[in-house]
């Protein structure tokens, strides 16, 4: 076209110039149009009507009774009654034989293809009566069915592609943990926390386009891209699966890593779904939801075994079940005023709470799924807010209740005064689930369950005197304060995943860390990682990492590795450091008794082994360092020797420059040495003598 136009223009111009007549748009003589239509009008051609157009609204109905002309009208009535339900029938055609009998099949044309399709899905295989069953097909499918080959060919078996062992990282003989380091330029590194120096396992630039996450059991690494989510795994971190959803902003794994939830608040115009649940193993989309407003992530919360997932809406709790992905019992649970809920980490029980409404008290309810049975409910008064904390083993549930003495309504906002706080502790493993209550008058800054065991810690008090209280619920009813630490610098609590040890951290200003052994409440060590905002235990409770992210701070970003006793092992400072994440581990498969055995024989059997191993590693490491230094020194010495030789050769020239005074050494010039004596008063003492 372009070519043509140019030549035309030229022609036109020439003509206009020559005779001033109307432009001539004819092709010049001998012009050959060598541009195909496809090249020129590809986009327009895509919309060119096809031969089949118009036939999409036609259906073929087979299995119609064969009738003579006498009953034809009646048949027509019956048929049109059935088929006009799906849309306007434009025409129908009843083929007849020479005697005027219908042939048992008819053609019906709708005014649009949608009606035709609806009719096919609805009426196909529907019985008209005992003898006749409709077989309805789209006219456009006719070709498809006629060309089915006579002989069935078995599908070719697909080649077996070996998948990497996703659990390989658990086979590490020394049980070293892995961690990922995310740098500001989408640079992701995976390290093995080996002793005495970590080993770099993977290092990829631009591995992700927004963020990275480990799956909850550590099997997969998820990277989030503009077009969706990619899962990586195995020893070499190969791509395991892709999930397409443009502009993903949040992702969430189900606890057993069977399903992946992705959420994209502003998907493409064409793609309206906002939240999609994928099956991780097959990569298939299981269900999608349209979410209104700006919800709190995660919108859906999973039960511990991936069997159920639930979300709350206004006055409603919707529980869905897998693998059908339908609503449990096909209906949501009506709970007026529901505010928040949490699944138990060990049972299919969820705890939710309902806000106070005039004379109706607030309620905390434990609901068993799928029976929908309320196994425990607690009424509460004067409630401003509740927070639900499950203990990791699901043995206990703590609901922190913010209560008020007075409430006022000011400008539409409710203001509370005389705040005090209750901890309602539910003993899940006991009959009837008894509840204990602790009341604390001061404001609460943090709460944390010991992951295993029965202790929990609370940070409370005014900023001048922050207290850390430890409670124990050993026996059934008796819940007791076992230790109160006063005047601590602390804003967050981090329990070791194996219990017993806890880090009291101040993660707002200074970044102070205090390592405490809760067996005797001794401070093992305390330190400071200035401005540290994040603290994370490794999955085995051997190391703690504190970090300062470039997302929050400009200066001194990096992460520090601490031992569980609070000794800084390594300081990794980097300007581009953003995020540190330990690779999670699945729960141990060892039984309780086996664990006990191991703990018993730890001192006798294992300590010696481990210490020996550590020693060997350390000697090797220091040998490595020494070797490296020797090499550096050797190279440097070689360089220096050469330079010093040159320098010595230049001695005469140097002497010449400084009028033959040798100044090469500090005291080399002995001839021109002037000694000057300068006296100083070093000390003056006055002693009064009686």
């Amino acid at each position: 076209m372009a070519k043509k136009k140019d030549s035309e223009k030229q022609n036109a111009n020439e003509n206009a110039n020559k005779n001033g007549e109307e432009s001539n748009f004819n092709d010049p003589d001998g012009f050959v149009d060598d541009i195909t239509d496809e090249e020129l009008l590809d986009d327009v051609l895509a919309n060119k009507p096809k031969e089949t157009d118009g036939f999409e609204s036609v259906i073929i109905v087979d299995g119609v009774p064969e009738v003579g002309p006498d009953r034809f009208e009646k048949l027509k009535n019956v048929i049109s009654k059935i088929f006009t339900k799906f849309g306007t029938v434009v025409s129908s055609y009843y083929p007849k034989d020479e005697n005027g009998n219908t042939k048992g099949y008819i053609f019906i044309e709708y005014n649009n293809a949608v009606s035709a399709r609806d009719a096919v899905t609805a009426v196909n295989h529907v019985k008209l009566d005992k003898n006749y069953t409709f077989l309805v097909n789209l006219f456009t499918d006719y070709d498809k069915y006629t060309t089915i080959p006579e002989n069935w060919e078995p599908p070719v078996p697909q080649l077996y592609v070996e998948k990497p062992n996703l659990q390989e990282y658990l086979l590490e003989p020394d049980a070293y943990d892995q961690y990922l380091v995310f740098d500001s330029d989408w640079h992701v590194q995976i390290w093995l926390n080996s002793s005495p120096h970590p080993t770099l396992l993977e290092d990829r630039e631009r591995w992700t386009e927004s963020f990275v996450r480990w799956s909850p059991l550590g099997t997969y690494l998820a990277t989030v891209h503009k077009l969706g989510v990619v899962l990586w795994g195995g020893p070499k971190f190969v791509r395991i699966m892709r999930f397409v959803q443009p502009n993903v902003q949040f992702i969430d794994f189900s606890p057993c890593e069977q399903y992946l939830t992705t959420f994209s608040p502003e998907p493409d115009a064409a793609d309206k779904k906002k939240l999609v649940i994928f099956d991780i193993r097959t990569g298939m989309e299981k269900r999608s939801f349209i979410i209104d407003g700006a919800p709190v992530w995660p919108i859906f919360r999973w039960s511990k075994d991936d069997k159920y997932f639930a979300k709350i809406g206004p006055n409603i709790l919707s529980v869905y079940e897998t693998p059908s992905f339908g609503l449990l019992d096909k209906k949501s649970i009506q709970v007026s005023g529901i505010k928040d809920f949490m699944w138990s980490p060990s049972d299919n029980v969820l705890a939710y709470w309902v806000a106070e409404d005039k004379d109706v008290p607030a309620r905390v309810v434990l609901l068993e799924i799928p029976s929908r049975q309320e196994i425990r409910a607690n009424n509460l008064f004067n409630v401003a807010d509740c927070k639900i904390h499950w203990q990791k083993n699901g043995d206990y549930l703590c609901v922190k209740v913010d209560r008020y003495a007075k409430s006022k309504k000011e400008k539409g906002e409710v203001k509370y005064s005389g705040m005090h706080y209750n901890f309602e502790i539910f003993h899940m493993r006991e009959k009837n689930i008894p509840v204990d209550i602790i009341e604390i008058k001061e404001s609460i800054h943090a709460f944390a369950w010991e992951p295993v065991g029965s202790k929990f810690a609370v940070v409370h008090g005014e900023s001048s005197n922050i207290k850390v209280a430890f409670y124990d619920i050993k026996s059934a009813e008796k819940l007791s304060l076992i230790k109160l630490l006063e005047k601590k610098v602390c804003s967050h609590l981090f329990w070791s995943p194996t219990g017993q040890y806890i880090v009291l951290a101040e993660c707002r200003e200074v970044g102070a860390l205090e390592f405490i052994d809760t067996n005797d409440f001794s401070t093992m060590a305390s330190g400071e990682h200035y401005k540290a905002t994040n603290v994370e235990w490794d999955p085995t409770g051997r190391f703690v990492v504190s970090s300062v992210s470039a997302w929050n701070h400009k200066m001194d970003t990096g992460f520090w590795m601490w031992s569980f006793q609070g000794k800084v092992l390594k300081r990794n400072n980097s300007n581009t450091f953003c995020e540190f994440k330990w690779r999670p581990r699945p729960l141990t498969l060892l039984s309780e008794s086996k664990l006990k055995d191991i703990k018993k024989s730890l001192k006798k059997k294992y300590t010696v082994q481990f210490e020996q191993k550590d020693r060997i590693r350390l000697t090797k490491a220091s040998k490595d360092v020494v070797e490296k230094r020797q090499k550096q020194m050797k190279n440097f010495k070689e360089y220096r020797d050469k330079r010093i030789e040159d320098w010595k050769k230049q001695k005469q020239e140097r002497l010449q420059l400084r009028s033959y005074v040798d100044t090469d050494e500090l005291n080399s010039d002995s001839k021109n040495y002037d000694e000057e004596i300068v006296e100083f008063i070093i000390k003056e003492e006055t002693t009064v003598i009686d």
Partner: protein
Amino acid sequence: MQNERSLEKHLHYVAKNIDSNFIKMKPILLLGHERALTQIKYNREGDLLFSSAKDLRPNVWYSLNGERLGTFNGHCGAVWCIDVDWETTRFISGAADNSLRLWDCATVFMLIENSIICVGVEIGQLSVKSAVRTCVFSYSANMAVYSTDATYGLDCEICVIDVRNADDSFSNTSPILRMQVKGSKVTSTIWGPLDKTIITGHDDGTITQWDTTTGRIIHSVKDHKGAINDLQKNSDGTMFVSASKDCSAKLFDIEDLSVLKTYQTERPVNSASISPLYDHVALGGGQEAMEVTTTSTRVGKFDARFFHLVFEEEFARVKGHFGPINTLAFHPDGKSFSSGGEDGFVRLQSFDQSYFDYKFDY
């Protein structure tokens, strides 16, 4: 405050910390400046320490006890650079008052014997068109080089002058060599071996080697990403260490300007010095005063930091300043060092035994 710190009061200031064991690791605080230090330099023997600051008067001190010997009065702008020749007879200083001044050191001694007033006598001054940023005597001290700032449409200039017979007519001295610097200005200058070359560090991180006979550039390298703040040679003058705003210091070969070692920190480095005694490098710096957001000195990291010259490993820090260290120098015997900070103090620090006992395993 200024009155309290006035020069007269501190004329015979002897540091507070002096007592019978003052030569131990306790520092001697030299309080003679009212503003941020710009440069400190030992003379060749190391018995004297010269210091300049953004106030008007460079000082000279006994390095042994921190007693002030005298001042050089005359400048009327911040003094950016100082140097002393190898015989400790003449002293040179360049300032923001667009002047380069040459002083007689000997006069200072004479006057101290009279114990009337201890000031250096100015031999002469050279007026230039913009602030004098760097000035250095050559090895022979027959020549000196100075560089001027690029301002008001003036290019930065490097000039070599003959100072052999400098007298009253010094102000009329015309440079024997003049080198125009296009682009980034000179921030630091040293002489190459046998006075055959001059090495300049620039604001954009480049380091350039000039031929002093032709005035041409021999090499130019850009291994730093930020401004060069300081260049200092080792004791035999075959290597030099650069201090840069890019938070690192690098060891260079003085002939081919190849990078031999890099010492990385996380704060801008303002000054670096090579120990004449051991394979050690001292780095001084810290967060720039204008960028300090909190009052905490923890953020600033105003420590003098010691690295092994060859292994590039940091092994010690010396705290003390409550502002960034602007300039730092090893004593020529390597047994002490001094640092001058933005806080206006010079800290004269002698190493204690543990420093001499510390050995790297290799």
